């Protein structure tokens, strides 16, 4: 194996070993209860999202209102990321928390209306039914705006570029600034897990679920989710960090009406199509 690839593969292993070896440091008068809830909460949140995803024919938990549950879960990121900044009792974290909520106001409304589009088209809130309804044409093809808003929302809830101002370099790490040791490991793992979970939920919503030639359905779900997560991270790393004061206006004035228009088109196709 070439040295470069080997050391790139070792990065997550080395970081994990480093953080496991590190003794977590506390800050003066930190709100330890809320801080711990926040730092350990992101990973279970991602797991709860993954539980909703239909792997091929059936999900672990088949839920008639899976889309709404996904939405409810992604709103928990609001609480957890803000508490992460609050718990440390330090300015960078607190400002990071404020930034996250401001950005969340920007990405969440387009995301909510983006979730409506596939649900209207499939006439169901069940992720399994929505996936099955795409046997003819994947929803991403005729709902590109909704898909875009959804992807932006996934980047936002996993605090990833370009919506990573809450953990920005200009805030010395923001909500991550005071985290060390295993707490930091849990948060970083949680952020990756949220990105993957968001990508996995996109598969039944927009990417045809487990449909695909030759391979079994569950493997197609895994492949599609992995590819989308990788693509989101790759696109994000080529974009600058966008502060809330840059994002909010275009998110509400441009993206939100566009997504509403997308919903209108989908509704018209369903009624008259």
């Amino acid at each position, binding site marked *: 194996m070439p040295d470069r690839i080997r050391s790139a593969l070792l990065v997550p*292993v080395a970081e994990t070993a480093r953080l496991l070896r590190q003794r977590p440091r*506390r800050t003066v008068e930190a709100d330890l209860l809320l801080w711990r809830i926040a730092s350990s909460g992101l990973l279970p949140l991602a797991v709860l999202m993954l539980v909703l995803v239909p792997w091929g024919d059936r999900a672990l938990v088949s839920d008639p209102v899976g889309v709404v549950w996904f939405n409810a879960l992604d709103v928990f990121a609001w609480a957890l990321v803000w508490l992460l900044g609050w718990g440390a009792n330090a*300015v960078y974290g607190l400002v990071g928390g404020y930034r996250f909520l401001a950005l969340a106001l920007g990405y969440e409304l387009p995301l909510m209306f983006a979730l409506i589009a596939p649900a209207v088209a499939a006439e169901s809130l069940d992720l399994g039914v929505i996936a099955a309804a795409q046997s003819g044409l994947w929803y991403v093809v005729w709902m590109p705006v909704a898909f875009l808003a959804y992807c932006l929302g996934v980047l936002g809830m996993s605090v990833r570029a*370009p919506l990573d*101002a809450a953990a920005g370099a200009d805030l*010395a790490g923001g909500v991550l600034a005071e985290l*060390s040791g295993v707490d930091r490991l849990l948060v970083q793992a949680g952020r990756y897990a949220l990105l993957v979970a968001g990508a996995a939920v996109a598969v039944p919503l927009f990417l045809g679920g487990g449909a695909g030639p030759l391979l079994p359905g569950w493997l197609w779900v895994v492949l599609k989710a992995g590819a989308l997560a990788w693509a989101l991270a790759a696109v994000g790393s080529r974009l*600058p*960090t*966008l502060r809330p004061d840059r994002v909010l206006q275009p998110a509400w004035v441009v993206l939100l009406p566009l997504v509403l228009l997308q919903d209108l088109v989908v509704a018209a196709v369903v009624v008259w199509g």
Partner: protein
Amino acid sequence: MGLRGLLSRLATRRVHVLVAEAPAAHEVRRALEQEVCRRGWVLAGAAADADLLAVVGSPGRRLGEVVERVWDQLPDPRVRLQVGHVDQVAGALDAARAELADTSRQRDAARDRPSGPQPGETDHGEMDHGEMDHGDMAPSGIPLAEGAQDRDGLEMDVLHLPLGPVLRHWPAGLVLHLTLHGDLVGQARVERLDEGPRPPSETGPDRMLDAAASVLDLAGRRQLADRARELRDPARIAAFRRRVLADRVLLWGLGGAGSEVVLRLDALLGAAAGELDQTDPRSGAVTDARLAGLVRGRDLGEVRLLVATLVPWLEGDREAADA
């Protein structure tokens, strides 16, 4: 080698380094940063994320006190080093890594350390109202936050944040005392630690590119920043300048095409490429008083970007350079 040895070897594969830079040591700082990146290590943004505190140059009394407080904030295992010369960098980093990997020694050091933070060792990150005493309303000496009117006349909580002096992409020895309403700057006051005669401003291409790279780093464009640091040839710098100015999303994220930050970033790259007139009004030079006025009412992130564009002039003495 046992499991423990393997763990400590893996754990010190990517050392996270926090740099504390004394005035007039930017060349050593740059050499250190280059060496850290060459080894695949990481430059940390905050004390909690660091294994190694690298003190660059020779800090005066006040900066020395701050460095001690930052050192107290590093989680165990931790190492510190001091370098004063470019030639010492690689050796000092090797020694620091070996010390970091020495588990038994680290454990002994950690045992002697009081567990949990000591009240009063608050540093830049934390709210610092030190002197006041409100009895029961002030656990660990931190009183209730005060309110003040923000820019729009709303009564809001006030946070006190000293920016600097141990901060990435920040002029050495400079502290900007801010009051914040959320993420908006209210009042600002500039302080210089260990004020002495400053060296004349250096405005060579290296210095300009380093400042431009800092701006790109702060804006979240790591790869672009690394490319800026590697540039040498004026023609390629000029091409890079055109490329940055054509990146609409980047400019928009920095505050828009006509914003102060973008104008000054363009001036930095222009000066590095030798394309800029020396008398260009954008080419830097702000006094400390002007800086305080410049940052009031701005977003905290915008303040960081703006100061990063001014590092060459804020570290050096412009008038001495002109004379």
